[in-house]
Every structure is written in structure tokens, then in C-alpha cells.
């Protein structure tokens, strides 16, 4: 059937797939260092071009115009979304793309089932492997699709508040159980499946898809914005696993290799994110984090009253001028205020005057793993200047000034003291060990964990109230004035 591939041995396509797999692996390898990472991404992308191109050429299936149209439409939408997105909107876009991958996998498995049912005619052509793998693909793919849509909506501020109701875990469990039962029905009928039941065969798959879609929504709806790094990482893993199980359905090795690599990546990131918050995945997905303590009315008056000192940009600039080492701690507030460029400008000014400036980045700051690093890189902060928690924590005692902008829970000392605190045991940045701490925040309102932060009332803490960008810009202007 192959025209362009005429005369080539049938192994050619498999070799092309193998090469594509190797290119994906090499691409991931290059991601271990920022200098080689961009090249790695190109290597990985060329693997994708090779795999897709080989498939199209080998089977000569671009002939239906619809297919070419589908590729063009997808490529146009993908290009448009990726090129117009602001750095601050990247988490939701990445979340959305994740969902599309999972959704595509679920559709492919369904289409393949329909195809096999429509053309095979006999039961023997549908193996348990195919139906079981299709069931897994449908379940994981649809959960990924709908879960990602909700996650992207939350990150975009459309569905900001977690939606909670009593017995939600029971509802989720029942939905999952129902999906599994339908999945089992899909698998068990395949070996004794006769030609007369052909039409009935695919039905369980679509029921499974519907249940999994509902489950995806139910799973993500109750989760708050600050837990999104975990959710995004987990959905990333799911989209990969969906692709891998599609490989089992279609008898295709490159799908299994590539999908599994993605699955492994997502799971590792999920574990890292959970560890950074000292919480289990079960706790993130199924518990009422933050809500309970916030509702208990701990508004922090007993912690803050009479102890909070607010400051002004003028005063902060005086402190900056005498500092030798400054550590800047960015948080989600910096992303929301789009303050990264002002922060970078301030860092540049300080460095030009011989002040050492370091950025301390908590793993779960922001809305996706490594979110702060991307924002700072966009503002041209060199990656050597961004330090992880374990590297920067021992250095706070030799730091003259810490400037916290838009971060809250990740600099809360109660992580070490209060055992009843929702963040007890969470690794945090020990900013209070520095000579002086300036916290830029709009108000004393609690962060995601819903608890007051004693740091704000600390003896060496000054509060710089206001929007992150306005405050940082004020610092830049003031610093320039006093310098000139």
C-alpha cells in the first residue's frame, strides 16, 4: 500500500520510530543544564517530526484532505496560543495542552475500537490486551482532559475558589468504581464476543469515557490554586501514561517509549512537589487543606497586634544602600503583579553598585513547578543567581536584607514550631535569620494555608504594603534618585 515507501523493508518504519525514541531521550538529557536545554528541546521536536513524518509517508495517509486540514488547524492553533501567551499565563496554557494530549489519546483508543469492531467482524481479532489498554487509555485520557480544563480554568482565575461539599470523597469513589465496573465489562465481553453483538461492543467505552470525564472534573474542582503545581505535574504524568497505553492499543512501540518517559517525568515532579510541602499526594487530592483553619477565625490579631511595623520605599532604599548581600524571595504575588521586570531592574541596580543579589526560590512558589524560575529568566535574571531552598537556607545568617515579594506560606516559621499548623514540617525559607526582612505584600491577609505568619510581626521584619509591581517600581525609582 505504500507508494513512497515502496521497496523499503517493513522494518523501516520501526527503525524510524526507534530513532524518534532515541531523539526524545537525547532531548531530555540536554535538559539537565540551562545552556543545552534549548538544543534538547529542538532534538526532541525533531524526533516528533521524524515519527509523525514517517507514519504519514509510510501509510500514505495524508491523501485524505481532512487529515492535512486537521494537522494544519492544530498547528495553527498551537502556534497562535504559544506565541501570544504572556509568561504569567503559561501555567494555564501548559495545563490546557496537557489536557489536549490526554483527550487525543482517549479519542484514538475509541476510534481504534470502533474501527476494529467495524472491520474485524470476528471476536478473535479483539484481544483482551486491546480492550484492557483501551479501557485504561479512556479512563486516564478523559480524566486528564477534563481535569486539565478545570485546572486551566482555575489558573486563569475563572474558577478560583475550591468548590467543596460534604461527602465529596464518596462521590468521587463511587464515580471511579462505576468507571472501573464499566471498564471490566468492556474487557470481559471481548473474548466471547460474537459478530452479532458488534454494535453493542463500543458502548461501554463511551460510558467509561463519560464517567472518567466527570471524575476528572470532580477531582480537580475541590483543589485550591496553591496546590496547582502538584495537580499540573500529576496531569502531565497522566497525559504521558494515556499515550503509553494508546501504544498498547495500537501495537506501537514509540508511543510506549515516549508516553512512559512523560509519565515518569510527571510522577517524579509530583513527588518533588509533595515533598516540598511535606504532604502526601492523598492529602493534596482529597483533604480539606487550609479551609478548616481559616474558617476557625484565626485572623491573626493575637499574632500581629501592635507588633507589625510598616515601612516605605524610601526607608527600604536606605537599607539597600548599606547592604552587602541581598536575597530576594519571589512568590505568586510577584507573578500576579507582573513585577518580575521591576524586580530584575532593582537587582541590576544593586549589582551595579557591588551588592551581591541572590534569588531564593521555593519549589512550590507559584502555580507550576519552576514557575518563578521562568518568570525571572524572562526578565533576564541569569540562572546562576536563582538558588534552591537547600542552597540558600544556610546563607540567610550572612545576609543583610531579605526582600520577600508576593510570597507568604513559604517563609512562615510556624512550619517549624506549631505541630497543629497545616504547614507543620514543610521545608521553608529561613528568611528571619537575616539582619532585616522586608516583606512586600498587599495586606496581612493569610496565604493559601489560611494561617497567620509570625514573620510579619518579627522584630527584624518591616512590612512594605502594596501591589508587587508598584512597590518594586517605587524602590527602583527611589534607588535611582538617591544614587544620582
Amino acid at each position: 500500500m505504500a507508494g513512497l515507501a515502496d521497496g523499503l523493508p517493513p522494518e523501516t518504519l520501526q527503525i524510524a520510530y526507534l530513532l524518534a525514541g532515541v531523539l526524545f531521550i537525547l532531548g531530555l538529557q540536554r535538559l539537565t543544564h540551562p545552556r543545552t536545554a534549548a538544543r534538547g528541546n529542538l532534538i526532541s521536536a525533531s524526533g516528533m517530526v521524524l515519527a509523525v513524518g514517517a507514519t504519514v509517508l509510510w501509510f500514505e495517509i495524508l491523501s485524505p484532505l481532512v487529515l492535512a486540514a486537521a494537522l494544519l488547524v492544530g498547528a495553527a492553533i498551537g502556534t497562535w496560543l504559544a506565541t501570544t501567551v504572556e509568561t504569567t499565563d503559561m501555567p494555564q496554557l501548559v495545563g490546557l495542552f496537557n489536557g489536549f494530549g490526554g483527550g487525543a489519546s482517549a479519542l484514538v483508543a475509541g476510534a481504534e475500537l470502533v474501527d476494529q469492531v467495524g472491520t474485524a467482524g470476528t471476536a478473535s481479532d479483539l484481544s483482551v490486551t486491546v480492550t484492557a489498554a483501551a479501557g485504561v487509555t479512556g479512563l486516564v485520557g478523559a480524566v486528564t482532559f477534563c481535569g486539565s480544563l478545570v485546572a486551566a480554568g482555575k489558573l486563569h482565575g475563572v474558577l478560583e475558589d475550591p468548590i467543596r461539599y460534604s461527602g465529596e470523597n464518596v462521590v468521587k469513589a463511587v464515580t471511579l468504581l462505576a468507571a472501573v465496573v464499566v471498564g471490566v465489562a468492556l474487557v470481559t465481553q471481548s473474548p466471547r464476543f460474537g459478530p452479532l453483538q458488534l454494535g453493542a461492543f463500543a458502548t461501554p467505552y463511551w460510558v467509561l469515557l463519560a464517567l472518567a470525564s466527570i471524575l476528572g472534573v470532580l477531582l480537580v474542582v475541590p483543589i485550591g490554586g496553591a496546590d496547582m503545581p502538584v495537580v499540573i505535574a500529576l496531569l502531565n504524568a497522566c497525559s504521558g501514561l494515556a499515550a503509553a497505553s494508546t501504544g498498547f492499543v495500537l501495537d506501537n512501540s514509540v508511543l510506549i517509549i515516549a508516553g512512559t518517559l512523560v509519565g515518569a517525568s510527571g510522577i517524579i515532579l509530583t513527588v518533588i512537589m509533595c515533598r516540598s510541602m511535606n504532604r502526601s499526594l492523598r492529602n493534596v487530592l482529597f483533604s480539606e487543606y487550609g479551609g478548616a483553619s481559616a474558617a476557625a477565625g484565626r485572623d491573626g490579631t493575637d499574632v500581629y497586634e501592635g507588633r507589625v511595623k510598616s515601612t516605605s520605599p524610601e526607608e527600604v532604599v536606605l537599607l539597600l544602600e548599606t547592604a552587602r548581600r541581598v536575597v530576594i524571595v519571589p512568590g505568586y504575588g510577584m507573578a500576579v503583579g507582573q513585577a518580575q521586570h521591576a524586580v530584575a531592574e532593582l537587582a541590576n541596580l544593586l549589582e551595579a553598585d557591588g551588592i551581591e543579589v541572590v534569588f531564593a526560590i521555593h519549589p512550590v512558589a507559584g502555580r507550576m513547578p519552576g514557575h518563578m524560575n521562568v518568570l525571572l529568566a524572562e526578565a533576564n535574571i541569569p540562572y546562576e543567581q536563582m538558588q534552591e531552598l537547600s542552597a540558600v537556607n544556610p546563607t540567610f545568617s550572612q545576609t543583610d536584607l531579605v526582600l520577600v515579594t508576593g510570597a507568604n506560606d513559604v517563609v512562615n516559621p510556624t512550619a517549624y514550631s506549631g505541630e497543629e499548623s497545616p504547614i507543620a514540617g514543610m521545608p521553608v525559607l529561613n528568611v528571619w535569620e537575616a539582619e532585616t526582612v522586608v516583606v512586600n505584600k498587599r495586606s496581612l491577609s493569610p496565604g493559601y494555608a489560611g494561617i497567620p505568619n509570625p514573620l510579619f510581626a518579627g522584630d527584624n521584619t518591616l512590612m512594605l504594603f502594596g501591589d508587587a509591581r508598584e512597590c518594586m517600581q517605587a524602590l527602583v525609582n527611589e534607588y535611582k534618585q538617591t544614587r544620582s
Partner: protein
Amino acid sequence: MAFVEHLTLFVLAAFLGYELITKIPATLHTPLISGTNAISGITLIGSVLVAGSGNTTLATVLGFFAVVLATINVVGGYLISQKMLKSFGRRRGD
């Protein structure tokens, strides 16, 4: 290929993935997510196959939508990673 061979591939790829990913620094975790996300768009191959086989109309329609979704994922994912990674390679003042 037999199921066991596929399973072997899956298990080996999982170990390889673990080795590769654990070496990637936290700084690059966002590009890692969007890059691997683009890789998960490999399901595009499956989409092309089912959309192009033209065996049944329903499968072709489903395949068409799968191709659109997967292509958005692949193209958008790689572009967005490239955009982020370029800013990481950049030096201040460039």
C-alpha cells in the same frame, strides 16, 4: 509485537525516564513539563493512523478531532518550551 514485549519496553522506559528526569534541576521544571507534554503528543501518530485508515466514518471523525488536539499539544508544547528555554540561555543585557 507481543504484550510481554510491550510491557518490557514500558518497564525499561520507566527506569530510563527516572534516571533522566531526576538529573534535571528545579530551575528547568516548567520547561520540562511543557516539553514532556509535547512529547506526550506522540499520540498524534495514533491519531493520524486512525484518522487516515478511513475504515469507518465514526473512526475518521474521532481521528480528525484527535489529530487536531494532538497537533495543538505537539506544536504548542514545543514552541512554548523553546520560548522559555531561550530566556534561560540568555545573559543579562543581551
